[in-house]
Each structure stands twice: as C-alpha cells, then as structure tokens.
C-alpha cells in the first residue's frame, strides 16, 4: 500500500516560494535563507561525496588482483587518505546536519529561520574554504598519512602535503562549530508556542545532541591539528619522543574528537530514521522519551570511549580495560533506539515507499555494524582483528549502511518539500535495492577478509584473499551505480517531476503544514502546537 498523494499535472508550483522569490547567482551566494543555504550545502556535499567515492572505486579496482592492478603503493596510500578525509570531514560529518538540519530545524520547530542566519551562511563559506585547501592538497600531490594523521609519521616523516590538508580540516571544523551553535540557540529560543521539549520531533533531539558534540569536541581536534603543524614546522616537542613528546598523546587528543565524531555522523541519521519509521508505519514512536534521551546518552557516552581505538598502540592496558567497559555501555542507548523502532513497526500500517526502504535497510545494516562494534570493544578480539578489514567492514556498516542510508532516506522523504517535485517512485525503490545489494556485496566479504587476517591500508595482499576481494570490488561497482541513479532522477525531477502537494506522505510535523516548496518565511503565521509528536490516529489493530 502506498501513502503517496501527488497532484496530477506536472506544472510548476504557482505560489511564491524560496526557490522562485529571487533568481541569479548573487541571490544564492548572498542568501541568508536557511533553506537556500541547505541547498548550497547539498550541492557541495554531493560533489565531495562523488570525489571521495571515485577514490574508493579506484582502490577497489586496484585490489582486483593480489599484486595490485592500477597504481603504485604510494599512490594507493594517497587514495585511501583522500577517500577518508573527504568522506569523513566533508561528507559524513556535515551531510545530515548541514543539509537536512539546515532545511528542517526551523521548519520543524515553527520558526522563520535559524537564530543567526548570517552565521549560517558564513559556515558554508568556511566549509568551502576548508574544502579548497584539502582539494589543493590532493591536486598538489596528495597526502599519505591516512585520515587519522597519526604522529610521528604526520609530524616528522611524511613528505606529502600534510599541512594543507590538515589546515583544510582545521578550517572546516569551524563550520561545524558555527552550525552547532546556531542549532542549539535556535532550538532553545525559537520553538513555536506550545512546542515543549517533549513534543519536539526526534530529528530535533538528534540534531541537538549532535550540536553538543560539535561544540564540545571540534575545538579539541582544531588544537590537535595546530600542535601537529607546530611540531612539523617548528619542531616543538609535543608528540615526537625525540623532542620530549608522546606520540600516544596525539591519539588521545585526536580520538577525543574523532570518536564522538562517529556519533556526529550517525546520530542525525538516527533522527531521520525516527521520522521515517513513524511516518511509514503510521504510528506514534514507541517510547518517545527513551528515544529522545538515548540521543543525549549517546552524545555523552560517546566522549568516554575513545581509547578503544588504541588497544594496541602502547596505551596502558588498565586504561584499555576502562575504555573497553565504557565502549560496551554505548551499545545500550543505541540498542534502545533499534528496539524502539522495531516496536514502532509492530502492528503498524507499513508502506514500502522509497524512503521506508532506506529506513528498513538502515535498521538491519546499522545493527550489524553495531554488533560487530561489540566484538571490537572486547580487548581480546580487538587485538586479533585490529587494523584489519574487519574494522573497515564494521565502520562502513555504520557509516555507509547506517548514515548514508538514512541520509538518502531523508533526502527522498523531504525532496518533495525541498524541490516541490516528486521523483519516480519505481526508480527510487529500485535504487534503494541496488544500493542495499551493492553495499552488502562490497562490505560483507570484508568482515571475512579481516577475520582471516587481511590488514587494512595495503596495496597488495596474499593470493588466497582474491575471491573475497573480487566480490568486494564487484559490489563497489554496483554500489557506485546505485548512488548515480538517485542523482540522475533527482536532477530530472527538478524540471519534469510531478508537482508535489504540501504533504505528499500524509506525515505529521510542522514542516508538512506549509506549502511545497515553502515560502521564504516558512509559515504565513507562526503555528501553535497543541499535540504530541507523531500523533497518528490509532487503528483498531493496535488497540488489542
């Protein structure tokens, strides 16, 4: 059963909205409208996603044969570094907050814009500036340290463009801080009358928790990068033992940000997931307060577990034990979410529209990524699979299987609101399936490869691993095609798609009460909220 309603005639929406209120490049580059800034982010993030993706495709092609097919080992090192840096800092971290968050936060809370619209535009320029530095580093010859910039390699030995790339990440960090600050103030100060904290959509709770991590974590990464640069340029001893430093201190400071950053990447995805599951099962979320609080729980606990990246680094094993126990704890709020989504589906009136296919894919893939995370939190197993493809598979199940699925689900869900147009449902469902299949074929063999002992970050491998590597590479090509299909039909739909109604999915939430696309000021009158979130009518089957 489909819940889709669209207007028949494929003609442009007649009202004045944020897309047709002004035209021309200037009207976009100087806009302070959160919706237009969201689209600026959408375009730039998509660009970085495909550049980072191209690096991944090259790597997978190279690994078709045990001796390596395409590039020199040194170039291979640069490929995985570029892939990591672009995907982590320029796609995964900003994707949902800066695109969907920017677009939706004011509309979901009944506000006309974010609290600081100019700061919001500045955050995009800062992001672009950081991106340009990083692209310069790539074009000038690349970086070979891995996205983690471990010292003393990055500070002393690497002859690649470490400073430019690190500077790019440093600059982009400020874009995150500005965005996080903007969201926190907006959510505190600009909620519509009647919209109490526990009536907020769960997407808002997730974005709020993410913003806290942005603000508390990102400065530490910035400081760490500056210290690496100072050591590289002026030989100040912070991380280099020869100068009196401690290389493991770098890993502590790096992961103090970068592990919570994992939750920056997945928490907004979980927020999208809650919206999709409730809408397409037409049910109130199961255990609203637990889902909301679990976002804050993840944000807090996420800061206490970073040492699990360092079990074999020379870190004290006593610290390792503490970090191991704390890492297990993060599973609790994550599991609360997964169980509550599943319970929401129970006796729901489920429809399999494209966004829901992504949402269901998310639950399964995220769970697999999460459960293998439990393997990795265990000190003994971690030593066996440390720095192997098992770890690669684990975090790609979370990042790609979880976060990218949620991001695409969210884009498919809110595209009618963003563009005022529908996309072809058949193609969208097909793309979701292609991505699901391609993803599993790419990454499931990597679990096995890792368990068998194939280390990550090597350009060559023993011949007995070839079959699984070929499977993985084949999957990557399917995945690549899967990602291109939505790109094509979304662009197509902007001109030729059927016009979308204000609420094509019959969803709850303030953003659906305004026309598609919304006017610049979002609402003609600020709405007054009188009901709980996800107040879908209760059906007979659910009463029993």
């Amino acid at each position, binding site marked *: 059963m489909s819940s889709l309603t669209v207007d028949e005639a494929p003609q442009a929406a007649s009202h004045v909205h944020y897309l047709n209120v002004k035209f021309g490049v200037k009207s976009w580059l100087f806009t302070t409208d959160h919706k237009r800034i969201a689209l600026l982010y959408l375009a730039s993030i998509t660009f970085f996603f495909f550049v980072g993706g191209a690096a991944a495709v090259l790597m997978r092609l190279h690994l078709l044969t045990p001796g390596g097919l395409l590039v020199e080992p040194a170039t291979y090192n640069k490929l995985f570094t570029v892939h990591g840096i672009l995907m982590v800092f320029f796609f995964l971290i900003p994707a949902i907050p800066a695109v969907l968050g920017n677009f939706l936060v004011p509309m979901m809370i009944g506000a006309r814009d974010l609290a600081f619209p100019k700061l919001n535009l500045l955050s995009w320029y800062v992001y672009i500036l950081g991106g340009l530095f990083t692209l310069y580093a790539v074009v000038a010859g690349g970086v070979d340290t891995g996205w983690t910039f471990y010292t003393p390699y990055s500070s002393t030995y690497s002859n690649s463009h470490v400073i430019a790339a690190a500077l790019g990440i440093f600059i982009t960090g400020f874009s995150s801080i500005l965005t996080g600050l903007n969201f926190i103030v907006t959510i*505190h100060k600009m909620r519509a009358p009647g919209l109490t904290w526990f009536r907020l959509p769960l997407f808002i709770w997730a974005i709020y928790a993410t913003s806290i991590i942005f603000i*508390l974590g990102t400065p*530490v990464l910035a400081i760490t990068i500056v210290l690496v640069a100072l050591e590289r340029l002026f030989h100040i001893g912070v991380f280099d033992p020869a100068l009196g430093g*401690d290389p*493991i*201190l770098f890993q*502590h*400071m790096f992961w*103090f940000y970068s592990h919570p950053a994992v939750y920056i990447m997945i928490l907004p995805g979980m927020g999208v997931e809650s919206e999709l599951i409730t809408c397409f099962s037409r049910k109130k979320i199961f255990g609203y307060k637990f889902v909301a609080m679990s976002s804050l729980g993840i944000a807090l606990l996420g*800061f*206490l577990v*970073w*040492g699990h990246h*360092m079990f074999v680094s*020379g*870190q*004290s*094993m*006593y*610290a390792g034990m*503490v*970090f191991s126990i704390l890492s297990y704890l993060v599973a609790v709020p994550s599991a609360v979410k997964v169980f509550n989504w599943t319970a929401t589906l129970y006796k729901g009136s489920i429809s399999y529209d494209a966004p829901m296919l992504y949402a269901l894919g998310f639950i399964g893939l995220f769970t697999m990524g999460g459960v293998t995370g439990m393997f990795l939190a265990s000190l003994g197993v971690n030593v066996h699979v440390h720095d192997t493809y098992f770890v690669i598979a684990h975090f790609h199940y979370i990042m790609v299987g979880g976060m990218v699925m949620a991001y695409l689900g969210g884009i498919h869900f809110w595209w009618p609101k963003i563009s005022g147009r529908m996309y072809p449902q058949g193609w969208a469902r097909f793309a979701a399936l292609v991505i699901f299949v391609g993803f599993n074929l790419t990454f499931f063999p990597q679990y096995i490869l890792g368990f068998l002992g194939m280390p990550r970050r090597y350009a060559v491998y023993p011949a007995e691993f070839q079959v699984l590597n070929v499977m993985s590479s084949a999957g990557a090509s399917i995945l690549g095609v899967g990602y291109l299909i939505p790109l094509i039909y979304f662009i197509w739909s902007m001109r030729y798609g059927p016009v979308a109604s204000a609420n094509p999915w019959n969803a709850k939430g303030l953003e659906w009460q305004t026309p598609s696309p919304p006017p610049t000021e979002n609402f003609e009158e600020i709405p007054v909220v009188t009901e709980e979130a996800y107040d879908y009518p209760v059906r007979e089957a659910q009463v029993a």
Partner: protein
Amino acid sequence: MAGHIVSIKLYALIFITLLVMTGVTTAVGYVDLGRWNIIIALAIAIFKASLVILFFMHMKYAGKLPRLVFASTLLWLAILITLTMSDVLTRSWDHPPQGWQSLSTSGQR
C-alpha cells in the same frame, strides 16, 4: 535582549593585567624553580583565563544557561584529562613478560 554594559575602564584594567601577567610568565621562565616552574606558569595561565572568561566573555554577568554551558566545557576538559591520565599514569603498572627488559624500569623513558 539587553546585555550587561561593562565600562571601558574595567576592560582596559583587565587588558593591562593580562599583559603584566604575560610578562610575569616570561620572567619566571628564566628562573629555575624546579617543578614549581610549571605550577606557577599554569597558575598564572588559569588566572588569566579566568579574567577573560569572567569579564571579556561576560560570564560574571551571565544567566544560568550560559553558565551551565560554560561549566559543561570544564567538565569535558576534565574528561579529556582524566581518561588520558588513566593511560599515562598506569603505563608503568604493566609487568613485562619474564626475560623482557622493561623500558620503564630500566630508566630509559
């Protein structure tokens, strides 16, 4: 929203204090006081940071919510230092396998 207005005189006074304390830090750096060097330098740094936070960042005049936000940053700093020190301070607890020479006990650290 009306913020608290601080007189330029007070700002100037604090600015001069900060400059003087920077001078003191530099001067103390030239005197060998053993482990007291780092303690004095950190104490001065904390004093200076407190001035900046209280007056330049208006925390002295701020409401409860901004104070809570600021307090949370101190808590997070404490997390960073505590868990990092849980590694640094316990590294020497490890007993190397028999026959292996421990770097920490042979005085090479």
